[in-house]
């Protein structure tokens, strides 16, 4: 096969490994998140209820871990799906950068969304 294809697609191990690591973070974090939000506080969801949870450092850590790991896992997963359908060369580079910029922006927006509870 052309040497160019190999060079253009070099790497992949780190993204593959990080997809696995974030998967573990999400499985543990989501279990905590879903049980705390929807089982222990069934029908109690409100601004103050969220504030009560985010007063505990544990939930600040869990929520930020979920935000970061979730965004990475989602966007890298979408990239993995799209790469199965013929993105190469310029379109592949643009896809990767587009998703990266979108991910950073989404993380910033998500952190801003949590801000009022953290500073309350």
């Amino acid at each position: 096969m052309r040497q160019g294809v190999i060079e253009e697609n070099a790497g992949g191990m780190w993204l593959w490994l990080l997809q696995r690591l974030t998967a573990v973070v999400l499985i543990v974090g989501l279990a905590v998140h879903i049980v705390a939000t929807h089982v222990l506080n069934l029908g109690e969801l409100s601004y103050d209820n969220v504030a009560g949870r985010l007063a505990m450092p544990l939930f600040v850590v869990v929520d930020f871990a979920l935000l970061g790991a979730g965004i990475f896992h989602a966007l890298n997963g979408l990239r993995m799906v799209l790469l199965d359908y013929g993105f190469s060369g310029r379109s592949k580079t643009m896809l990767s950068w587009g998703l990266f910029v979108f991910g950073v922006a989404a993380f910033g927006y998500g952190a801003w969304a949590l801000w009022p509870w953290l500073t309350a």
Partner: protein
Amino acid sequence: MSQKDRETANVGAGLWKGAGMWAWLFHRVSGVALALYLFAHIWVISRGAATGAEGFNTMFETLESPLFIVLDLFLLAAVVYHALNGIRVLLFDLGVAIRQQKTLFWAVIAISVVVMAVFAYISLSFIASHGA
């Protein structure tokens, strides 16, 4: 495996009886759905910062209507399947149980069904008690 077994093992089977392709397809579809949900979820939570406590609470009254609780069940089905099949894939990545992939797939389906039954019971009794 006898010669006859070998020759007939795949008779009419096609690929879909391999279970692995279903597992992959469900994983992919639920994954894309969850990715889209994640960004919707971030936007919903950001209403707290954007509209303050009152707007946030009004929105949550809508989100606790029966329609959204039923949608939540679909969401949970996607989360549970994606997580359990994700564990199945993680095992494969560790080189474990690749040859037992079909058994694992059915285990994933079975556990998903049980978890969904529990949550369906919880949410339906929630709808019943709040609707009355």
